[in-house]
């Protein structure tokens, strides 16, 4: 289990762009957290600090209370797995199975472990039947699921997904939701960056809203998508999900998901 603590984290790119500005954030073991905000708000920069791909220019990052400034990325990768947005910036192997085995292999797992992890990860994303296929014969959404499997196979206590639903159809989104639920049930921490407000409202217990390299809002969906928070959302060009807007219009309180909306309506009679 790994708890992540960020203390006053700031990050300035070499060209002088400030991407993060005094970020304080704690993500406990087993939490499911969505990070939202427009492009350039600092989401991607933030998650790259979790496994040391980027090192803070101010402040510090702690894993279970230990400062990781001197721990190499290759070692941090065993604790925090990150699935990046574009599958084609990652896939290199000629076979699906080899691609998935790459992570556990670089982490030095045993051959039996690697095989079992690969099999389980492929099953989790529904790609067992494609284990021997060439990744580039799969369509975009299946390639994307493949990159998720590649990180699942590493068995990291923390799994970060950058835009897992981009380019997915309804079935793909449902599959991603199922994978996330499985991770949470296993007690693993799940963190996702997403532009899809309906997805985050329905699948995460906590939402962090970023803008201009800072955390603007941090709370459960019902709080972040409640009417009083709308002006803050708007400042990062975000719109609450449809259900939340309808709920507010009908004065039903905060109804971030369609289920919540219908429940609230039914309760009112």
């Amino acid at each position, binding site marked *: 289990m790994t708890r992540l603590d960020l203390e006053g984290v700031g990050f300035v790119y070499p060209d002088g762009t400030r991407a993060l500005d005094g970020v304080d954030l704690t993500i406990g073991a087993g939490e499911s957290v969505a990070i939202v905000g427009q492009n350039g708000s600092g989401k991607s920069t933030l998650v790259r600090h979790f496994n040391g791909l980027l090192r803070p220019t101010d402040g510090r990052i702690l894993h279970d209370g230990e400062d990781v400034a001197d721990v190499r990325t290759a070692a941090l990768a065993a604790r925090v797995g990150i699935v990046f947005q574009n599958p084609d910036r990652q896939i290199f192997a000629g076979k699906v199975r080899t691609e998935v085995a790459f992570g556990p292999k670089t982490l030095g797992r045993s051959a039996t472990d690697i095989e079992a992890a690969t099999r389980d990860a492929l099953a989790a994303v529904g790609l067992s039947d494609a284990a021997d296929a060439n990744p580039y014969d799969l369509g975009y959404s299946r390639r994307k699921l493949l990159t998720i499997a590649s*990180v699942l196979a590493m068995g990291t206590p923390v799994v970060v997904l950058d835009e897992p639903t981009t380019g997915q159809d309804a079935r793909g989104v449902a599959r991603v939701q199922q994978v996330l639920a499985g991770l949470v049930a296993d007690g693993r921490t799940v963190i996702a960056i997403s532009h899809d407000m309906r997805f985050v409202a329905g699948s995460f217990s906590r939402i962090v809203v970023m803008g201009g390299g800072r955390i603007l809002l941090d709370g459960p969906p019902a709080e972040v998508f409640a009417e009083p928070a709308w002006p803050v959302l708007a400042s990062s060009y975000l719109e609450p999900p449809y259900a939340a807007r309808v709920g507010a219009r009908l004065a039903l309180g905060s109804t971030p998901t369609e289920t919540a909306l219908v429940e609230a309506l039914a309760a009112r009679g």
Partner: protein
Amino acid sequence: MPVTPSPYHRLNPLTKAVIATVGSIGAFVLGGYVGPIAIMVIMLLLAWRAGVLARLARVSLLLTLPIAISVVLVSVFTRAGTTVLFQIGPFDATAEGVDFALQTLVRLFAISLSIGLFIMTTEPRAFVFDLERRGVPPRAAFIAVATIEAVPTLVERATMISESQRARGLDTEGSFLTRVRGLLPIVGPVIIGSLTDVEERSLALESRAFSRPGRRHLLWAMPDEGWERVLRWVLFVLLVGAAVARLTGRI
């Protein structure tokens, strides 16, 4: 029209290209010390006039240094010669080797300065538009400029790919051997990704009549003074003269 900070920047792109070509081929053809050093001095003076002296010197050093070091090591110690200067283990450093290394070095620097000056003072697309105006097929011109302009994208892509592999535990900070082993997972996606991008871009460009044959009118006029044309011919003739003199053994 892009902003042009110095009169040298404002020269016709072809003139600058000719200066770069004559400089680099000239340094190669002339050999020895005087020619290449003269070319180096001219390029540095032009760079100073164009306000890019410091940047050009730095970039040219950075680019040339790795090659220069290997050239020096290889030629100083392996070139057969009669005058042995000193020995390291089984290797003899010969005076002939040192001479050869120095000659190669001045050529290398003259070439990198010539090309570097061109790149730093010329907008690639201005160059291509100018070539197009002179009758180079637009497709060839496009490929040339797209290749040059693709470098930053390629670097960005390689960075992202290396990030996603490091996130899977790939050690790019370790020993030389570990790094070499780590190359495949990075190079593979770089190549595949570039090919897909090229394919997508060519489809997108078809929708903008890219493959239509025939003339195009430029959006703006391209400067090309009469004296520049004369200068280009003079430089060209000088280069041919040098090559002929070299081939016939006169220099």
